[in-house]
């Protein structure tokens, strides 16, 4: 089962954190900090896997991927397979976020916080991978977006604002 999904930037600021078993806020913060501590000390060109038992307790592994200014991290136990989790990150980022926001960047994730959560809820539910067809995920998200667009008159955030965050 998947224990947590985290997105943080290269300075260690959390951009998204979803823990599938409840943890108090302080604990979440601590975990995020420790994960970042490990991530930023990883050299280039090494594997995307980390043994995370010292951080998340027994039977936990961690897979991360680095996109531009963001780390995507998935924490899970031995019932999942590392390569699959790596692909799950790919699926989330390249097949879904990339389609939602052309050229996805850190800013998109910050501003569309609730949307990212919606997407994640479509992919992972209760710690299990529920849906891996990007078309399905997109369709579900679109449906909600349409509804939202219908109720909201304005929905504009200038893309130019991304320049300062994505450096």
């Amino acid at each position: 089962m998947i224990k947590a999904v985290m997105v943080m930037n290269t300075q260690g600021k959390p951009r998204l954190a979803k823990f599938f078993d409840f943890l108090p806020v302080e604990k979440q913060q601590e975990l995020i900090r420790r994960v970042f501590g490990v991530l930023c000390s990883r050299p280039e060109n090494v594997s995307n896997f980390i043994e995370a038992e010292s951080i998340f307790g027994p039977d936990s592994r961690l897979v991360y991927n680095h996109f531009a200014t963001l780390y995507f991290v998935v924490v899970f136990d031995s019932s999942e397979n590392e390569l699959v989790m790596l692909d799950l990150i790919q699926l989330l980022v390249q097949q879904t976020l990339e389609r939602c926001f052309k050229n996805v960047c850190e800013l998109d994730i910050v501003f569309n916080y609730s949307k990212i959560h919606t997407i994640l809820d479509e992919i992972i539910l209760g710690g299990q991978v529920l849906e891996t067809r990007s078309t399905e995920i997109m369709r579900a998200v679109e449906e909600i977006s349409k509804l939202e667009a219908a109720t909201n008159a304005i929905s504009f955030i200038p893309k130019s604002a991304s320049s300062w965050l994505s450096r």
Partner: protein
Amino acid sequence: MGSQGGFYQSKEFLDLVKSIGEARSKAEEDRIVLNEIETLKRRISEPDIPKRKMKEYIIRLVYIEMLGHDASFGYIHAVKMTHDDSLLVKRTGYLAVTLFLNEDHDLIILIVNTIQKDLKSDNYLVVCAALNAVCKLINEETIPAVLPQVMELLAHPKEAVRKKAIMALHRFYQKSPSSVSHLVSNFRKRLCDNDPGVMGATLCPLFELIARDVNSYKDLVISFVSILKQVAERRLSKAYDYHQMPAPFIQIKLLKILALLGSGDKQASENMYTVVGDIFRKCDSSSNIGNAVLYECICCVSSIYPNPKLLESAADVISRFLKSDSHNLKYMGIDALGRLIKISPEIAEQHQLAVIDCLEDPDDTLKRKTFELLYKMTKSTNVEVIVDRMIDYMISINDNHYKTEIASRCVELAEQFAPSNQWFIQTMNRVFEHAGDLVNIKVAHNLMRLIAEGFGEDDDNADTKLRLAAVESYLRILGEPKLPSVFLQVICWVLGEYGTADGMFSASDITGKLCDVAEAYSNDETVKAYATTALMKIYAFEIAARRKVDMLPECQSLMEELLASHSTDLQQRAYELQAVIGLDAHAVACIMPSDASCEDIEVDRDLSFLNDYIQEAIEKGAQPYIPESERSGMLNISNFRNQDHHEASSHGLRFEAYELPKPAVQSRIPQTLIASTEIVPVPEPMYPRESYQTTMPSIPSDAGSAELKLRLEGVQKKWGRSTYTPATSTSNSTSQKTVNGTSQGDGASTVSSMRETYDSRKPQVEVSHEKQKLAASLFGGSSKTEKSPATGHKAAKASSHVVEKSHVPKSSLEVASEKATPAQQPPDLLDLGEPTATSTALQLDPFKQLEGLLDATEVASAVNGAPAASRSPDIMALYADTAAGIHNKNDADLLSGLSNPSVTNMPGTTAMPQVTQSSSKGPNPKDSLEKDALVRQMGVNPSSQNPNLFKDLLG
């Protein structure tokens, strides 16, 4: 412009994020966030906020909480939003509550109703939102409230809803299997769902169910295989393709399930061979997901009943992984190799170089994985290299968690495969030196035990050499600063026990070092306690050898300090040391025989050694002992007895007040009697008879109750230890520990723990062998206690044999030089009749026991009155049976483990002359005996670690 995707955020939020992003320091960020919290607090409680605004506030709250700040003031608003009619607002509410609240939060009660309503909604998006919340927020208590609705949704026309309903049900199962156990068959039904997505979702709960109970799902093997076949043959729609692979996520889940179902089941496995082989062939190894499927195939192949062809394919894939440039694939390759070598160990050989490369790799994860593989591959031929590498790595890292893991693995491997004693000691020293405070204390005890018992059972010279090597290395290591506490304990114990044994080092050398230790680590009481006891042993050995004892000045000052210590344990040890030094050689040799830490201790359960004493007492007019069955007339005693008995048979009710509603007087008498038996050494002098009477029966009765308790262990704890029976129950429950303590010779010398061992063993002797076996298998072997550490660790067995083999030739060459060692018993002694040895050893115990039960003066008189010569044959006769029985048992264990009988009995033999001496010598000073008992109690384990010992002693 997809950036917004319709998820509206305001300028304010933009500004907030921007300013946080631009914050230069954590403090600045905190200030901004606190400011924001103030704003939100004010705004959120204003009346008539437009929904859209409210929604944004909540999102901002979520964001703030993600940054680590408390947003609990807004939880209630999030809960309110879930009640809203507008889907968008409701969704935001649900999102916020799933992130804010845990399933036991007080506010959940306000949401359950809404969830119930929403699950029945016509709008499937509302239902989906509610199901998301169900997965996160419903706990065991609230499951029944939503379960009917969720069950209905399993048949919902929308597949997205069915999928989520399955996940919700799965979640219920995870949280409380019992509340949905009658519904698990629904997962099977959903496996046949028309929609492959729903089928795929069903695999998650099925995987978990099968992992818990394989046998109930064997019938599904065929179905799973055919599903997997269809998936692999691209029968699913294109939408399921991912990187040109047909539904790889489903394939992987199915392979995982098959691995479980085929494990150890030839018939089931045979059904799988074809499809797994097909996947091996078809899989595209250029994509990440393709490799994921291949890896899962290897896992499956290594789990199911082996098939040579599939193993070959698996080996091919592994070599491809290992040769790859990608670290990820190398990692998977190493992991897969670790799985496969269990079935075909030879496969590792071909990949030696690749494995070594991975070991040198800068990637820490890969390195650790490789160490894990090496750990699995370790044999006696490669143990030196592997453990050496592991220790080097252990030293190089800072992560305590992983350090601990490696240290315990090193210890395990070293114990299991050690090629030589020297190497073993050195390895352990390195481990302790660098990770001493991280390893389990048991490891230290085990090391002491190994040094005490030696490896080669036939070969005393080898043992002596081992000990000498240990002593030498420890004296050297003591020079290093900042040693871990556990390691120091081992060092102190070994120095105390064997420091002067071979005459290589003088007592003043060793005591000097020990004093240094106690001084350098003066705030570690355990180390100080070990050092003090070690000092006592050294001095005791000196005195016993009739050498002049000069206490070093630093030692004297240390003792002075300890005599006034705040720690009663240390104080006690210091007093004991003082007392021992004041005794003469005979007494000391009796208290502290050298190298007797592995001695077997036999028990006289009938206390027949008291026969003479009883006779004498009866002649003087004492009441004879009346067995329990005949005692109904004597109310006061029977009350006491019943109570005792009752305690033993049913732990719930220990007072028979309802059956015998006698006046309080009666219950009081036993109380006092109990007290007199309890606080042993000081019974009221006016009632010598009564105390005698109660003392005597209390022993067998204790034993009897203990016998029952053997099987009822665990129950007694419930009721705590209130009155007097704990004496037995504690000794019983701790018996293993203490005996281990003895065999490990932890703390003080071990012969000196006889009394306590006596106590703890007494109940067990009574028990028949079958029961012993049962107890052994149930509770880790009370009958095996002597050897349980050895058998517990695969270590001793294997290693002893290995070591023995490797050492026999060497030591036979060295016999000549070794013979000179004074402490060693001449080998002939070992061949003395075993029973004699044992029973003489026995003779030692009864006194210890006596002095615990009777007034000290009586002890003296008993010792006096009973001429040793006349008694010993008695005992032998009486003990022939039990002793032999025990011996057989022990021998069997020992033989299987370490030794041949002669070594086992050796300590007993060693003790013999000393015992005869002391008993023929006449009355022992009462003080010394009392002290001695205490020494034993304390010496074995430092008080902080085993308070039960004191319970035994003090009641």
